[in-house]
């Protein structure tokens, strides 16, 4: 049997067995859960090679599953993050209800993502896409009634995206008479111009929803922050990357074939940058860590979308690199929040404080990810962001650079808020009982932190596979390795390492560490905790004045016009308008039998009047 089929079977059987096992006993369920994911991961990495293909025919459609370098790359995200999140969720979800349900949908989520990556045809792509949607939807609504609105919103937007995609797929099928992606790419140039423009737009709408692109992102903050954190890390880290994966395919395979491709590229790049900027602003305004991270995810995906849309070699390289890194650091951060939520019971940044001594390992993981997220050397985020800026400048997108740079800088604010809010500051009696999270939760976070460090130091490890993947996507291989185009690698290091810069940074870092430690040794001076900052504002009488409370008030006031209204508001307006319209329409069914009889006669009269128009 084909190794790809075996993977799918492992997932499917595993999902069902886990569900049943969980009903029997907790331990059985959890171990089956882990076993499934690790068995599939092992099977994938040991037995499946790029180029394996499994073709079959269903409902008269030729379909194909196979693996390409680019999907192999994304499968790193899915399986890597998936298996770590699985380990994490064992302890994180302990003592929660309906674990079988959670595990089942978790496995189905990973299964469907792998399916998306392994699909070489549009129909199985779409089927897996939908499985991904509903399995993640089931987890979003895991918490119950309180999140039902969030869940419906998520599913609604996903459905809009999916149906846009489905429309594109059926049109493609009617044009090409095949659903294989390679046939589409091959014959795309012969499409009429209208199709050439509309098909990518429809597809990008579909992918844009999952990637949380403006203005389709409104589901994301709610969905990310309301799922259990063990899943949110996968959700924001891997699931949203499927949108990115689709966008990569569309931009590199289809849009390059349109002569007028620039406009679409510009529009999407702008949307990406706006997503980044506005997402960041909203993230700053949040007091809840989950919400903060959710908005931050939206913002980070904005960078990635911009990179993919600009689509020069370097931009694409940067985008995919950032996509992998985002999976690592955002995955870790959601895990951190999950750990803190589990230990303290809340994720409110203004309440929790001073956990650094209580949860040191969690702190280290959080610190590393925050550094990577903010794009500070020597961690990987820096490399990715640098390459993105460079690519944007090299392709003359100066305003975009400004926008992205603004987003990135403003991003420091929420990074700081997150780190300070949870870990630094005064220790309060309230949190004196807090202990470090269990090892199974801490270890995945630490593994990711180490990976972040490694990738920041040796970005070549990741850049090489991306390079191979991009050549598969049709980027000319003439230049050798793309990353040599970056100033970063040309002038400050050899092709793989960033040694001088790295050492300089590490030295500074160590110096600060020593300095801070020394300072800490002097002993702490205690002040009353809640009167530290008023940010230049005149404080009211009974206000919480700790750093975290309204700390960014002046800044937020400055950007207030931009943030006046969430896009949600407009969607709600449209939605309510539609419902009112529908409510009006259904009144044609008056409930009176005679009215219905009159309708029949009126219908007869209309048909008789129009008969020459209707029937030739």
């Amino acid at each position, binding site marked *: 049997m084909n190794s790809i089929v075996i993977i799918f079977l492992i997932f499917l059987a595993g999902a069902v067995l886990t569900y049943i096992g969980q009903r029997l006993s907790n331990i059985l369920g959890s171990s089956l859960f882990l076993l499934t994911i690790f068995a599939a991961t092992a099977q994938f990495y040991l037995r499946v090679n790029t180029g394996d293909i499994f073709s079959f025919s269903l409902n008269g459609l030729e379909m194909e599953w196979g693996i390409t370098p680019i999907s192999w790359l994304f499968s790193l995200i899915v399986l890597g993050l998936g298996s770590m999140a699985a380990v994490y969720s064992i302890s994180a979800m302990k003592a929660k209800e309906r674990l079988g349900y959670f595990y089942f949908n978790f496995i189905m989520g990973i299964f469907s993502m792998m399916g998306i990556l392994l699909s070489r045809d549009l129909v199985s792509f779409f089927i897996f896409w939908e499985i991904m949607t509903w399995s993640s939807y089931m987890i979003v609504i895991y918490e119950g009634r309180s999140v039902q609105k969030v869940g419906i919103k998520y599913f609604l937007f996903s459905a809009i995206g999916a149906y846009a995609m489905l429309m594109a797929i059926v049109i493609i099928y009617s044009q090409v008479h095949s659903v294989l992606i390679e046939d589409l790419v091959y014959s795309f140039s012969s499409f009429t111009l209208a199709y050439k423009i509309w098909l990518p737009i429809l597809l990008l709408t579909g992918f844009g929803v999952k990637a949380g692109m403006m203005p389709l992102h409104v589901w994301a903050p709610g969905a990310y922050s309301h799922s259990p954190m063990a899943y949110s890390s996968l959700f924001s880290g891997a699931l949203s990357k499927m949108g990115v994966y689709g966008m990569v395919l569309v931009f590199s395979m289809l849009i390059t074939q349109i002569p007028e491709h620039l406009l679409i590229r510009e529009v999407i790049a702008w949307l990406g940058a706006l997503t980044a900027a506005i997402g960041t602003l909203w993230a700053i305004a949040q007091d809840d860590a989950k919400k903060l991270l959710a908005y931050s995810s939206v913002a980070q995906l904005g960078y990635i979308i911009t990179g993919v849309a600009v689509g020069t070699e370097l931009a694409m390289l940067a985008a995919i690199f950032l996509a992998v890194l985002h999976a690592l650091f955002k995955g870790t951060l959601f895990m951190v929040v999950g750990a803190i939520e589990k230990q303290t019971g809340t994720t409110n940044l203004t309440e929790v404080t001073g956990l650094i001594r209580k949860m040191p390992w969690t702190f280290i993981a959080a610190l590393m990810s925050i550094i990577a997220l903010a794009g500070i050397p020597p961690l990987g985020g820096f490399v990715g962001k640098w390459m993105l800026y460079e690519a944007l400048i090299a392709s003359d997108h100066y305003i975009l650079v400004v926008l992205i740079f603004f987003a990135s800088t403003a991003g420091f604010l929420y990074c700081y808020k997150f780190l300070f809010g949870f870990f630094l500051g005064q220790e309060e009696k309230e949190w004196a009982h807090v202990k470090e999270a269990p090892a199974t939760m801490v270890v995945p976070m630490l593994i990711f932190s180490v990976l972040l460090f490694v990738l920041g130091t040796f970005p070549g490890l990741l850049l090489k596979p991306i390079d191979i993947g991009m050549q598969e996507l049709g980027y000319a291989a003439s230049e050798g390795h793309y990353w040599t185009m970056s100033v970063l690698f040309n002038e400050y290091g050899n092709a793989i390492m960033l040694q001088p810069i790295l050492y300089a940074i590490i030295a500074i870092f160590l110096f600060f560490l020593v300095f801070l430690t020394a300072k800490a040794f002097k002993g702490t001076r205690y002040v009353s905790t809640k009167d530290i900052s008023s940010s230049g504002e005149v404080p009211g009488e009974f206000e919480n004045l700790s750093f975290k409370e309204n700390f960014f008030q002046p800044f937020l006031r400055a950007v207030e016009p931009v943030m006046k209204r969430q896009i949600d508001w407009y969607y709600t307006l449209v939605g309510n308008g539609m419902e009112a319209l529908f409510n009006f329409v*259904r*009144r044609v*069914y*008056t*409930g*009176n*039998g*005679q009215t219905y*009889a*009159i309708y029949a*006669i009126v219908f007869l009269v209309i048909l008789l009047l129009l008969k020459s128009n209707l029937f030739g």
Partner: protein
Amino acid sequence: MDQVKFDISLIEYGFFISAILVIMIGLYGAMVKKSLIKIVIGLSILESGVNLLLITIAYVQGGTAPIFSPGLLKDMPLTVENIKALGAGMVDPVPQALVLTAIVIGFGVTAVALALVIRLYRHHHTLVIDEIKNLKW
């Protein structure tokens, strides 16, 4: 046999028009009257109108009942031609068969309708159709 034709004569027009008028009256009753009983009566009239129309198209002017009796064939040999010639002087039997069926069906529908009216009256204590609108939208 030449005078027997399917031409529509004035009398047949009269039949048609009166049948259609009956249908119209039935429709009027079913659609405008507010009492359930009157609606049922309207539907009944509607049925009759349609049945009349059906009979009308079968009518052959001066035709006889569509029965082959031995007397009709007296001296003629039993050939296809002769039978056809005889048949042309008869009223078309098919619509009559149809009408019989339709009448039976109409009877059944009316019976069900009246039974429903009784049920409705017991439930709503009224026969005005405008007041029986619990199910709507």
